[in-house]
């Protein structure tokens, strides 16, 4: 047992690998929606089990069933030997649960929250001191005990949630999407803590929509649309696609065309852009000749690469969409007067004494895919909204296709399409009426309007849903409809604020096919995302951290900058962590210099 967790872990004598949670034929539906479609699985002590799947797969429902907060409609679940329905009280003692949304009191301090949970879990006063010291040490929250929980950063909030969930030494720890809204640095901290706990014999369930996190778990339950698609070590799933993952390297400027061609090959199941390269996954037992021909034609170098969990997941679901965007095909090539589509200089926004965006400057070329990346609260959305003319900058200038957003807001706005981060459709209108409305609001009339709407319905497969309310659509379709509305007037500049959050990986690929196709037609695309791997699709990425622009370069260049002994082949996430850490060091150095 490691020293730091001496008072935290239950000190179990139970053997590693014994069953902690037994799920038998569990089913749960809400109205007509089948959230869990009846599957069985076992979760073991001493292991980190990933509950992985896209949003809406049923992860949270399963979590809530396991922690006794929802009653299954069929089947049973036992946790630490107790039935979640029959022995509900015992479940709350044996398990520690951290809900997806921060569940602690924001108007109480760190210590007050911890005390509350200690007393709710019936801890004696003499146990407090030692446990608190350990937990604060473990979560590194020691210096912040008197800070109100609402004032903590996203990462610190999750650590506090973890500390409260760990309060009574639970045997099973259930963490619902603990890494959402947490910057990569804090996320690493969370992984470290969870690993120490499983080393001490605790069963930890970590649910996540990030498929790359699955690879860090010892065992994975892969959910999709309420069904259990896979149960076992992640390596077992990726082994199925061994020797089927390749990278077409040094395709450079032609990468979008290459990806499009590759995806249209019947032998290719999946493909994504990775900086200057294109990564493809071949179908099972597919012949190599088609891809070899493409490689020869484009002059690329074909490198076999390690399969990823996400590749395997897409393959499991039957592969991604094709490479041609019907939507972009219909676009005319965009002609602009200037080569610069979007630019801003010293753009700043302050809300009271809080600076959300601090003198940000950049220029975006016509036809470029430009990514804004950063943790929650870094200022991405604020910057974005100023560029779209939705927020007035406190200082600085912003231009879209040469039009000043301060003076010619209306003219500039007609040149851009905007897809908001939060769902921005009208719930009281049907899908068709939403399309009608956005066509009308952009001034489309008569035949052009009818044609454009029909085109969107066809491209995004909206026909079966025309009469329903957007609220009732599956999440992927909501996003499709929102994109259709944003593109109705064929704008030369497209702003997408987290277009793929909450969307399953297949729909994400479909979105990127459209985005790539549009960019090839000369549409300028500005995009924010919190999926680090999606940043690889961008021509250039602006990294934002604490309201400032800390880096702006091509994805490959950013990754190259993060190469060190520990990371010979860094990922986008490694690059991000590296940049954030050097930004923090810089800030520290400046603070020291001004102090001296």
């Amino acid at each position, binding site marked *: 047992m490691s020293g730091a967790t001496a008072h935290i872990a*239950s*000190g*179990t*004598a*139970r053997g590693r690998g014994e069953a902690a949670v037994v799920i038998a034929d569990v089913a749960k539906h809400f109205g007509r929606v089948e959230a869990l479609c009846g599957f069985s699985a076992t979760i073991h002590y001493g292991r980190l089990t990933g509950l992985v799947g896209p949003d809406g797969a049923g992860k949270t429902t399963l979590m*809530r069933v396991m*922690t*006794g*907060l*929802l*009653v299954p409609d069929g089947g049973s679940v036992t946790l*630490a*030997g107790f039935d979640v329905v029959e022995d*509900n*009280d*015992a479940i*709350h*003692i*044996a*398990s520690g*649960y*951290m*809900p*997806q*949304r*921060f*569940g*602690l*009191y*924001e*108007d*109480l301090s760190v210590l*007050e929250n911890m*005390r*509350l*949970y200690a*007393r*709710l*879990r*019936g*801890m*004696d006063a003499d146990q407090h001191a030692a446990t608190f010291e350990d937990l604060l040490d473990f979560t590194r929250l020691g210096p912040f005990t008197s800070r109100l929980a609402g004032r903590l950063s996203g990462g610190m909030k999750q650590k506090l*949630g973890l500390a*409260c969930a760990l309060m*009574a*030494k639970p*045997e099973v720890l259930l963490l619902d999407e603990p890494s959402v809204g947490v910057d990569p640095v804090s996320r690493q901290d969370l992984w470290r803590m969870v690993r120490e706990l499983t080393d001490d014999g605790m069963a930890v369930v970590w649910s996540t929509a990030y498929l790359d996190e699955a690879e860090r778990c010892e065992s994975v339950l892969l959910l999709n649309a309420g069904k259990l698609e896979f149960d076992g070590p992640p390596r077992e799933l990726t082994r199925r696609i061994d020797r089927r993952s390749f990278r077409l390297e040094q395709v450079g400027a032609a990468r979008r065309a290459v990806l499009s061609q590759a995806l249209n090959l019947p032998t290719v199941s999946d493909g994504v852009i990775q900086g200057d390269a294109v990564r493809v996954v071949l179908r099972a037992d597919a012949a190599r000749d088609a891809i070899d021909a493409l490689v020869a034609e484009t002059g690329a170098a074909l490198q076999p690469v390690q399969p990823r969990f996400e590749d395997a997941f897409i393959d499991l679901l039957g592969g991604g969409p094709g490479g041609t965007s019907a939507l972009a095909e219909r676009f005319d090539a965009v002609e602009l007067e200037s080569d610069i589509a979007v630019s801003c200089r010293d753009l700043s926004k302050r809300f009271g004494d809080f600076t959300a965006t601090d003198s940000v400057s950049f220029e975006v070329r016509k036809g470029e895919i430009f990514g804004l990346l950063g943790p929650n609260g870094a200022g991405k959305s604020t910057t974005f909204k100023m560029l779209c003319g939705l927020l007035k900058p406190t200082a600085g200038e912003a231009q879209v296709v040469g039009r000043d957003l301060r003076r010619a807001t209306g003219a500039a706005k007609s040149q851009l399409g905007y897809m908001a981060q939060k769902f921005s459709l009208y719930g009281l209108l049907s899908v068709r009426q939403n399309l009608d409305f956005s066509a009308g609001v952009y001034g489309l009339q008569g035949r052009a309007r009818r044609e454009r709407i029909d085109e969107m319905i066809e491209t995004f497969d909206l026909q079966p849903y025309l009469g329903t309310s957007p609220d009732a659509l599956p999440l992927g379709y909501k996003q499709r409809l929102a994109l259709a509305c944003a593109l109705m007037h064929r704008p030369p500049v497209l702003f997408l604020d987290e277009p793929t959050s909450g969307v399953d990986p297949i729909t994400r690929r479909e979105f990127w096919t459209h985005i790539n196709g549009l960019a090839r037609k000369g549409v300028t695309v500005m995009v924010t995302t919190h999926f680090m791997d999606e940043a690889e699709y961008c021509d250039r990425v602006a990294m934002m951290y604490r309201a400032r622009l800390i880096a702006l370069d091509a994805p490959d260049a950013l990754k190259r900058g993060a190469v060190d002994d520990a990371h010979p082949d860094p990922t986008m996430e490694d690059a991000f962590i590296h940049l954030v850490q050097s930004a923090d060091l810089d800030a520290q150095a400046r603070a020291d210099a001004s102090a001296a």
Partner: protein
Amino acid sequence: MNTGTRTNRTGAAPAQRARDPFNWRRLAALVHKESLQAVRDPSTILIAFVLPVVLLFLFAYAVSLDVREVRIGVVLESDSAAAQALAAAFAGTRYLAVTPARERREVAGQVVSGTLRGYVVIPQDFERRLAARVPQPLVQVITDGSQPNTANFVANYAQGVVQTWRAGRADGAPAAGVALEPRYWFNAELESRRALVPGAIAIVMTIIGTMLTALVVAREWERGTMEAVLSTPASVAEILVGKLLPYFALGMAATLGSAALAIFVFDVPLRGSLAALLLLSAVFLIPALGQGLLISALTRNQFLASQIALFSGFLPAFLLSGFFFEIDAMPPPIQVITYAIPARYFVSSLQTVFLAGDVWPVFLPDLAAMAAIGMLFFAIAKRKTRKNLEA
């Protein structure tokens, strides 16, 4: 089953305690948490202490059912001494503020524009009418019927002024057969403030008890804190009682504050005992808090909770409790409904304890009714609240 190993690990004592249906230490922890939140939340302080003061001031000063200084015009068409004397009588009363005029035209416009509430015409042939054997109307009274209360008052009072003036002239006008001298009990000065301020306390308590309770529970659902608390060993009863106790204390504190304000600032007498007032308030908080709890069991949305509290708590307490509108004057079906409004019993007892004294035959049925309605609310709320997230 491996219950044996578990007992060894966690120890029997904590496990046992955690599984108690009701644990005082957990309750204390929840009460402590709720109190900290209440103290830190500016809106709680606003509702519990600032709102009562504002309401009491409103009801004490701005809203008055008494009529004083009503603006009327007096058109003096006759120059006779008697007519002048009558005009002076109008000008002399403190209930009217008189604008003198010589012609109707001067004041008619002001009645239309609402500057004056009416006018009295002392006609040219006033002397002749006064002297006539057969009683003839002496003056003409025009009033603004768009405000019926005031119009009635102007008409009646104008009559009164004329009669008093006439009685004061010893010229043999027919004297009234029986002299009536009215005397009002409990509120001898007939100041509506004295009846309104105790009633306002009932409104304040309804807001604190029902609205605040419904809001703070809905807030826990909205912010997701309820999910985390439900996943601990705390029971539903502990969570709910932990919510109620701090707001009970807050309600009692607000009552004391309001009573002090009523007595020392607004000169409302407290003829009954403070103990009776506190007992009444404490018992009224049972239905008020119970209703809040019931609302929060029905909706987990703050906006909806506040709307339901407004329509089911505040408005009935305002309109149907007899605080503002007399129940006896309501149509019979509405009168029946008022029996279901806890504030009705509280208002009746409050007015008694302030203006009459400790009249236990009034209090006891009121207390019983409030307690009964409160218990009903609690029983339904308990049935509707489950310890899970199922809607």
